[in-house]
C-alpha cells in the first residue's frame, strides 16, 4: 500500500480515503479469510476419525493455505493465519486425537524455533557484511519515529515504511543508509521488545491466574448469574454484551458445532470443567500412588461410541459408582500424565483443596462400602492379576450400567489406558458366591467359559470381569461400570475400554450363574489394541476397600 502511495505523483484526498479503506479491507479481509479456513479445517477434521495420522497435516496445510491465499489477494496474510489458528483451535481440538494435538504442538514449536534462529542468523550476517553508512541524525530520527509509531500500535505500518523506502530509492549511497537504518530499527525493536516483554507478561499472568477459577462451584454459579442477567436484560428490554454472548453461544452450539465437530453435543462448560477437574484429581491420586506402572501402549481411541440414548437404566449405588470412578481414575491417568503437561495448559487446582475433596470422597466411599453389597477384597499386591483362584468370585449386585456418555473426551481414550487396567474389577472378591456373568460381547459370545487363566491369553479375555470401566468413564461422571462379573481378577485387561464400549452396544444381558470363577467369560472381543503384555496392575490405591 505504501508502495502504491509513494509512487503516485499526486496524492488526492480520494486516494487517501481509498488508502485508509484499503487498510481496513486488508485487515478485516485477512480475518475473514482466516475464519473461513479455520472452519474448513474444522469441517475436514470432523471426518478424519479413521485416518488419524494425517490430521496434523491438515492443520498445517490449512494454515499455510490461508496464508497463501491471503497473499494472493493482497490482503493481510498474517491476520489470516492468526485468525485461522484461533478458529481452528476451538473446533479442531475437539475433533483430533490427542496424539495429533501433541504432534501439532511440537511441530509448531519446532518450526518457530527454527524460524527464529534463521532470522537472527540472517540479521547478524547482514549487519556484519553490508557496507554501512551511518548518519547519526537520520538513524536516531528513524528510531524515534519507529518507537512512536509502535507506541501508537502501528508497527506494521512503520515496517512497511522502512521497507518501502528501501525499495523505492535505489540510489546506492542513500540506499545504504536506509539499509542501515532498517537494520538498526530491527535490532532496536527486537532487543527492546524482548527485554520489556517479560514484565508485561508477569503483569498479565498475575491477572490471568486470578481469572482462572478452577472450581466447579464457581463455574456453576457464574453460569447461573449469566443466565440471570440474560433474563433480566430480556425483561428490561435492553441487551448488553451478555445477551449477545448468550446468543452467540446458542448459535455456536446449535449450528456451528453440529457442522464442525464430530459427534458433537453441545457441551456445557460446567461439564467440561467438571471433567477436567476430575481428571486432575485422578492424576493427583496417581501421582501419589505412583508407581510401577509400566508404560502401556497408548490407546488410540477408546471411545468412539457416544451413546446418549438411554438404555434401560438399572439401579446402581452411587457409592459404588464412586468407587468405580475412583478406581478408574487411579488406573487411568497415570499414563496420560505425561502428555498432560503439553496438552492441558490449565493450572492444576489448589492442591490442598483437591486432596481434601479426594479424601472426603474416599471416606464416603469407605463408609459406603462397609455395609455394601459391593464387596471388594483387598487386592493382592502382586502385579499380575490372574484369574481368581478357584472358588472366588466377585460378587456383585450391580447390573451394568450404561456407560459413558460423553465422548468428546477422546482424550480419555487417548489415554494410554491400557485396557489392562481394568482395575476396577479387580478387587478380588473373596466370596465365593457365584457371580453374575460378565458382560458378553458379541464377538465372544461363542466362546465358552474359557479358562480363566488369562495368562495364556493376552487377549482381552480377561477383561471379562465385569468392570469395564471405560476410561472415558472419566469424562462421565461415575461411570457405572458394569459390575457384572467379577469372576476373575483379571481385570487387568484391556478390554475395559472396549468392553465398555461393547457393553454399551450390547444389550446388557445378564447371564446368570456362570460357572464360577474359573470361567472368565471371555468378555470382550479382544480389541487388537493392546493385546500386548499384560500390564502390571496399578498398585492398589491408597484406600483399601473394606472387605466384607
Amino acid at each position, binding site marked *: 500500500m505504501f508502495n502504491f502511495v509513494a509512487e503516485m505523483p499526486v496524492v488526492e484526498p480520494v486516494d487517501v480515503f481509498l488508502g485508509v479503506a484499503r487498510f481496513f479491507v486488508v485487515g478485516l479481509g485477512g480475518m475473514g479469510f482466516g475464519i473461513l479456513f479455520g472452519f474448513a479445517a474444522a469441517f475436514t477434521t470432523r471426518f478424519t476419525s479413521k485416518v488419524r495420522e494425517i490430521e496434523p497435516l491438515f492443520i498445517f496445510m490449512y494454515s499455510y493455505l490461508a496464508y497463501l491465499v491471503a497473499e494472493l489477494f493482497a490482503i493481510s496474510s498474517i491476520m489470516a493465519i492468526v485468525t485461522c489458528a484461533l478458529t481452528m483451535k476451538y473446533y479442531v481440538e475437539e475433533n483430533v486425537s490427542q496424539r495429533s494435538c501433541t504432534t501439532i504442538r511440537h511441530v509448531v514449536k519446532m518450526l518457530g524455533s527454527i524460524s527464529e534462529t534463521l532470522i537472527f542468523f540472517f540479521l547478524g550476517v547482514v549487519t556484519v557484511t553490508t557496507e554501512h553508512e551511518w548518519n547519526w541524525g537520520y538513524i536516531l530520527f528513524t528510531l524515534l519515529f519507529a518507537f512512536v509509531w509502535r507506541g501508537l500500535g502501528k508497527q506494521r505500518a512503520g515496517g512497511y515504511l522502512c521497507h518501502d523506502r528501501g525499495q523505492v530509492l535505489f540510489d546506492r549511497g542513500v540506499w545504504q543508509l536506509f539499509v542501515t537504518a532498517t537494520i538498526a530499527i530491527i535490532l532496536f525493536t527486537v532487543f527492546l521488545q524482548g527485554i520489556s516483554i517479560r514484565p508485561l507478561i508477569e503483569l498479565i499472568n498475575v491477572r490471568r491466574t486470578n481469572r482462572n477459577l478452577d472450581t466447579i462451584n464457581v463455574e456453576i454459579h457464574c453460569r447461573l448469574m449469566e443466565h*440471570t*442477567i440474560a433474563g*433480566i436484560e430480556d425483561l428490561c428490554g435492553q441487551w448488553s454484551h451478555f445477551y449477545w454472548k448468550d446468543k452467540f453461544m446458542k448459535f455456536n452450539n446449535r449450528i456451528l458445532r453440529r457442522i464442525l465437530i464430530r459427534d458433537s453435543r453441545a457441551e456445557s462448560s460446567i*461439564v467440561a470443567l467438571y471433567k477436567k*477437574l476430575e481428571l486432575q484429581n485422578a492424576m493427583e491420586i496417581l501421582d501419589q500412588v505412583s508407581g510401577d506402572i509400566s508404560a502401556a501402549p497408548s490407546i488410540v481411541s477408546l471411545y468412539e461410541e457416544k451413546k446418549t440414548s438411554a438404555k434401560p437404566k438399572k439401579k446402581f449405588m452411587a457409592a459404588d459408582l464412586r468407587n468405580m470412578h475412583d478406581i478408574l481414575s487411579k488406573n487411568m491417568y497415570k499414563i496420560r500424565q505425561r502428555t498432560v503437561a503439553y496438552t492441558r495448559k490449565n493450572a492444576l487446582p489448589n492442591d490442598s483443596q483437591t486432596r481434601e475433596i479426594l479424601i472426603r470422597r474416599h471416606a464416603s466411599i469407605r463408609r459406603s462400602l462397609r455395609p455394601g453389597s459391593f464387596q471388594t477384597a483387598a487386592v493382592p499386591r502382586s502385579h499380575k492379576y490372574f484369574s481368581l483362584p478357584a472358588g472366588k468370585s466377585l460378587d456383585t449386585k450391580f447390573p451394568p450400567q450404561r456407560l459413558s456418555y460423553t465422548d468428546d473426551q477422546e482424550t480419555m481414550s487417548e489415554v494410554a489406558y491400557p485396557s489392562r487396567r481394568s482395575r476396577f474389577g479387580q478387587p478380588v472378591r473373596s466370596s465365593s458366591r457365584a457371580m453374575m456373568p460378565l458382560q458378553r460381547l458379541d464377538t465372544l459370545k461363542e466362546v465358552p467359559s474359557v479358562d480363566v487363566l488369562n495368562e495364556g491369553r493376552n487377549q482381552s479375555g480377561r477383561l471379562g470381569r465385569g468392570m469395564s470401566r471405560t476410561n472415558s468413564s472419566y469424562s462421565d461422571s461415575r461411570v457405572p461400570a458394569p459390575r457384572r462379573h467379577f469372576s476373575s481378577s483379571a481385570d487387568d485387561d484391556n478390554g475395559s475400554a472396549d468392553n465398555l464400549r461393547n457393553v454399551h452396544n450390547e444389550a446388557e444381558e445378564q447371564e446368570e450363574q456362570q460357572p464360577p470363577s474359573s470361567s472368565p467369560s471371555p468378555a470382550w472381543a479382544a480389541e487388537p489394541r493392546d493385546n500386548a503384555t499384560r500390564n502390571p496392575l496399578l498398585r492398589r490405591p491408597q484406600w483399601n476397600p473394606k472387605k466384607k
Partner: protein
Amino acid sequence: MGSSSSSMDNIPNAEELMQETGFSAAHLLRLYERFEFLDKDQTGELRPEDFGAVGGLALNPIGDRIISAFFSPGRETVDFPSFVRVLAHFRPNDTNRTRNGTQQEPVNSRTRKLKFAFQLYDQDRDGKISRAELLQVLRAMLGIQVTEEQLQSIAERAIQEADLDRDDAISFDEFRKSLEKVNIDHKMSIRFLK
C-alpha cells in the same frame, strides 16, 4: 406509552424509590415505561403471565426462577415498587458514593447480589442450598446434555467443594465464600441501569 403518561408524577413514591434503590429519575422513568409495557392489561401490577410473555425469559433455563424472584412470598402480583426493588439489585456498584453510617446496606451491594443469586437456588427459603435444589438448577441449566449420573456427580462435587461444615448443604456463607474471588459486581450488573 405516550410521553404524556410517562412522567414522574405517575410513579407513586418516586422520591422514596429513588432514594432506596439509587436509581436516577431518568432510569426510574424508563423502568416505569417498561413496567407499563409489560403490564398488558393495565392493572398496575404484573402477574406471572405478563412475565412469561417476555420471549427470552421463557426460553431461559432458569426463567421461572427469575420470575418467581420478583414475587414476594405470598403475593401473587408485582407492583412497581417491588419490580424496581428487584431490579435495583442489578445496578452496578457505585464506587464513589458516600455512605453515611446510618444508611442501610445499598441494594446493589455485593452481598445483596449474592443473596439474590442464592435465592434463585434456594426456593424453599430455608437458608441452605440442599443437594436436591442444586440438582434442580443443574438439571435446568444443563438439560439434556448430561446424564443423571453425571448431574449427580457434578452436584456431589460442588457440594463437597463448598460445604465446609459438612452438613451436605450450602449455606449462604459457604456460598459467599466459594465466590470470593469472583467479580460479582461485573457478573451481576446490568450496565445501563447505572
